[in-house]
């Protein structure tokens, strides 16, 4: 992605290659993420989306390539990055409360041995308030709904007061209210010049929620502002030609003049999320040009 004027470079990825047991999961990814964007990462199953953000978070060692957070290595900048993992990555029957989970976000700042105190409690409660979960502070996490659990994870990230937020499918399996609440929150963060990188599972809402998108299928297919990059052609390249499209503009041009404007920036597509998962192995890449 070319550097946009007036923005800092939050994340820079160069030639990132990650392999698992000699099979490549990510090939030679180059990406520049400016600050103050809401970027989605989309791609079929097995495309390496989770691997990608884990590589940025220094959870996975790449076979080649470099990653820089505001110009420095992750281990020098970790206080600037907050991670919201997939909801399924923890056992929610663990004996702990929402407040407790959020306070774990402050452990890094506390360092070794120090216990969280009144100050940490206050900060954690404030974060819970921001996600509307203050009434559930002492609730055992197994008693929370999916959407509530997701909000707790989000609060845990908020409390870290980071510059960059890496999220893995935060909208997966949450109710509509929670989804709206999350996207509102993300937009607020963006307005404060925070950088949000979100692995997203639902092609239908990419255009509505995000301003930048990265199309990934082991290789980088394309990345940049949604109007430029989120095109039918690119989606076909990413999903191997098995995506059904519904065009929003042709039929409604009479009723909704707004859609005509979108033509100018390239077609706004809402893909009827039927991207086939099995297409992950057929990263069409250059094949479809024949």
């Amino acid at each position, binding site marked *: 992605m070319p550097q946009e004027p007036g923005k800092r470079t939050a994340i820079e990825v160069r030639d990132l290659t990650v392999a698992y047991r000699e099979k490549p999961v990510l090939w030679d990814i180059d990406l520049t993420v400016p600050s103050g964007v809401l970027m989605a990462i989309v791609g079929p199953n097995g495309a390496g989306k989770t691997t990608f953000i884990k590589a940025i978070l220094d*959870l996975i060692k790449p076979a080649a390539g470099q990653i820089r957070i505001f110009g420095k290595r992750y281990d020098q900048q*970790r206080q600037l990055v907050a991670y919201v993992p997939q909801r399924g*990555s923890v*056992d929610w029957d*663990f004996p*702990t409360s929402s407040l407790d989970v959020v306070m*774990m976000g402050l*452990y890094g700042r506390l360092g070794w041995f120090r216990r969280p105190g009144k100050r940490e409690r206050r900060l954690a409660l404030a974060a819970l308030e921001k996600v509307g979960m203050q009434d559930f502070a002492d609730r055992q996490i197994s008693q929370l709904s999916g959407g509530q659990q997701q909000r707790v994870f989000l609060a845990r990230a908020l409390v870290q007061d980071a510059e960059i937020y890496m999220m893995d499918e935060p909208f997966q399996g949450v109710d509509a209210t929670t989804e709206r609440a999350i996207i509102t929150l993300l937009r607020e963060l963006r307005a404060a010049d925070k950088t949000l990188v979100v692995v997203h599972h639902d092609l239908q809402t990419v255009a509505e929620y995000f301003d930048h998108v990265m199309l990934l299928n082991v290789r980088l297919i394309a990345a940049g502002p949604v109007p430029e990059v989120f095109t039918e052609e690119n989606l076909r390249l990413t999903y191997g030609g098995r995506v059904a499209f519904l065009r929003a503009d042709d039929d409604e041009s009479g009723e909704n003049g707004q859609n005509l404007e979108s033509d100018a920036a390239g077609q706004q597509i809402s893909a009827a999320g039927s991207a086939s998962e099995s297409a992950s192995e057929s990263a069409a890449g250059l094949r479809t040009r024949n």
Partner: protein
Amino acid sequence: MEIFQQLFTDYTLRMVAMGSATLGIVSGSLGTYAVLRGQSLLGDAISHAALPGIAIAFLLTGSKTPIVLMAGAAAAGWLATLLIMSVTQTTRIKYDSMLGITLSVFFGVGLVLLTFIQRRPEATQAGLDTFLFGQAAALVRQDVITMAALGGAALILMVIFWKELKLLSFDPEFGRTIGFPIRRLDILLTTLLVIAIVIGLQTVGVVLMSAMVVAPASAGRQWTDRLGVMVVISAALGAVAGVSGAVVSSTMRSMPTGPTIVLCMGVIVLISILLAPNRGIIWRRIRDRRNARRLRIEAVLMNLYALGLQHADPQHPHEEAVLDVMSSESGSAVPALNRLQEQGLVVRSGATQWSLTQKGLMLADRLRKERGG
């Protein structure tokens, strides 16, 4: 209460009780982490794997002091854990298979070593029994001191690294992103578990140690939703089982201590899963029934309300029989109506007729608004 007097006067009983209590406290506390992390059976593997370690420790040093043998057991237990981890990470062999292989092969090697030892002239009949089933009755002061010291050290470490271990157990990946050396903390926690196991081998033996790791924590979990409280409760329950087992086995004839402790633990687990508030099965049953009854009563109220709305006066009386039929559940609506009357929400206005009170009407109104329809 002669028994409790004996606890103070009888040296052997005191030693056994203290040793068992120590075991219960330590394995209950550290077992909490094992159970929460899904490592319940790792305790079983480590216990069995300890056998060759004990044998080799004896062969190398000629000493049978507890600390030496425990060191050997710990080394073997640790080695077993490393093997399990490395094989599962480098090949297609799964975790459960590795547990089974390590457990049985190490134990087999231990058996070979032990029978080999027994042929030697200077070896006394230290007996396989001691390590297989524990010989709690043979505990002396020195043993108990060693157990308490090691166990105490392990618990102190657990407290010092409290929040780090909590992070490790709940969300290790997140922990790594905020800068904690998760792998090293994992090593620490595994070491603490190994310590908990080796100090218990003398008391309950190899086969039953896995229960002392799993049971107290499983019972403790039912009584609380907070990690700290869970650790304390598990430790306490473990101690109770230990002491009860010691006492019972000393007062009754032919009750080997180790199995008795485990049986006491079993009873505690059973009580916990039945009676614990919130999670307990009996509790759940009662709560479910109470909820169902409440829903039923509410339904009758709303039915009466619905009927009333069809008249100018919503408090118009209606027949019981109608309410019976409207109810989706079989049986009479009368019990529910009686309950409602007790709460002042309806009133009998004829031999078989009922109507809403003002209070009942207001409540029904509100409920209807809340439900949006």
